[in-house]
C-alpha cells in the first residue's frame, strides 16, 4: 500500500534525493500524463502527531518549488496502478487547479474572540435557576435551553467576526474560505489564497487589520499548500 502526499505537474521538480516521509519511508514520484503523485510505502496507521508533521513536511517540501495539490492525510492506495488510475480519473480537473494555483499559497488566519466567560461561569454548564423552583426536570430543560442559546450566540459572534475580518481584505480580491471551529469560545478560521509575490503586502495588511480588530486576536499561519481550496 502507498501513502499519498500531493499531486504536482510533471514539469516541476521531483522530491529531493533521499527524502523520507511518514514512518521514515522514502518518497517517490509516480507520473502519468503530465501529472505526478508523491507517495511512500504505507504502514496504514493513524494520524499521530509525529505522522501528521512528517506528512506536512513532505507537502511543504513540494511547496518550496511549486504549489502542489495536497491530499488529505490518510489517503492510501493499494498499489502504484491504483494511484495512477486516480490521477487519470480527475486529470483535467487536477491539471487545471495546478495551473491556476501555481503561483499561489494558502495563508491562514485564526480569529479568537477576546471576551471570555466570567470567573466561575462555564458556558457548557447549565446555570442554576434563581427563580421559584419548578420541577427538577423542567428546571434542567430550561437551563439546557439557556446553555444552547449561549452557544448559538457564541457561534454567531464568531461568524460575525470572521465576516468582518474577511471584508477587510475585500479590496485585495483574494479567494477566501471561512469557517468556525467549535470550542469555548468558538474560533473563527479564515483561509486566503495569496500570490507568492504578494506575501509581504499580505502580512502588512494582516497587521493593519489586527490593530483595528477590536474584540478579537488574530493569529496568522502559513504559507500552506492550498488545503482549503481543493476537494
Amino acid at each position, binding site marked *: 500500500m502507498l501513502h*499519498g502526499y500531493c*499531486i504536482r505537474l510533471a514539469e516541476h521538480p521531483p522530491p529531493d534525493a533521499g527524502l523520507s516521509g511518514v514512518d521514515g519511508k522514502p518518497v517517490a514520484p509516480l507520473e502519468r500524463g503530465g501529472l505526478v503523485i508523491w507517495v511512500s510505502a504505507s504502514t*496504514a*496507521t*493513524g*494520524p*499521530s*502527531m*509525529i505522522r*501528521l*508533521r512528517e*506528512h*506536512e513536511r513532505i507537502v*511543504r517540501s513540494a*511547496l*518550496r*518549488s511549486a504549489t502542489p*495539490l*495536497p*491530499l*488529505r*492525510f*490518510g*489517503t492510501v*492506495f493499494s498499489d502504484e496502478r491504483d494511484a495512477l488510475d*486516480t490521477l487519470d480519473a480527475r486529470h483535467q480537473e487536477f491539471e487545471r487547479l495546478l495551473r491556476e494555483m501555481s503561483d499561489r*499559497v494558502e495563508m*491562514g488566519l*485564526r480569529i479568537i474572540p*477576546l471576551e471570555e466567560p466570567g470567573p466561575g461561569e462555564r458556558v457548557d454548564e447549565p446555570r442554576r435557576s434563581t427563580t421559584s423552583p419548578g420541577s427538577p426536570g423542567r428546571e434542567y430543560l430550561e437551563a439546557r435551553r439557556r446553555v444552547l442559546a449561549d452557544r448559538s450566540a457564541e457561534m454567531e459572534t464568531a461568524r460575525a467576526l470572521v465576516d468582518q475580518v474577511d471584508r477587510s481584505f475585500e479590496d485585495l480580491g483574494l479567494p477566501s474560505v471561512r469557517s468556525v*471551529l*467549535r470550542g469555548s469560545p468558538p474560533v473563527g*478560521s479564515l483561509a486566503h489564497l495569496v500570490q*507568492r509575490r504578494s*506575501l*509581504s503586502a499580505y*502580512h502588512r495588511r*494582516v*497587521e493593519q*487589520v*489586527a*490593530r483595528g*480588530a*477590536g*474584540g*478579537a*486576536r*488574530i*493569529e*496568522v*499561519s*502559513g*504559507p*500552506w*499548500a492550498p*488545503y*482549503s481550496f*481543493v*476537494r
Partner: protein
Amino acid sequence: MSDARAGSPAAWDRPPELETWADVLGDDAPSLAELVNRLLDRGVVISGDVTISIAGIDLVYLGLNAVLTSVATARKQLGPSLAGEPVEE
C-alpha cells in the same frame, strides 16, 4: 488590544522582499490546531471515506472535533512515544 502574531515570531522579522521560497517557509512548525485542521479536514479527497486508525481502533473520520478528542485520548494512551510534542490548548 489585539495583535497579529505569526506561527513564529521570526516571521515578522523577515525582510519585506523575499528572495527565495526557503525564506518564506523556513523551519517554523505550524501550530497543532492548524495542522490537524488542514490535514484531517481539508485537501483533496480521493475516496469516499478516509479510514484512519487511532490507538488500534479503526475510525471513519467524521469531523474535526471527533478527531481532536480521539487524538487527545491517543496522546494519553501512547504517552512516552509522543513525549516532547507541543500541546495546543
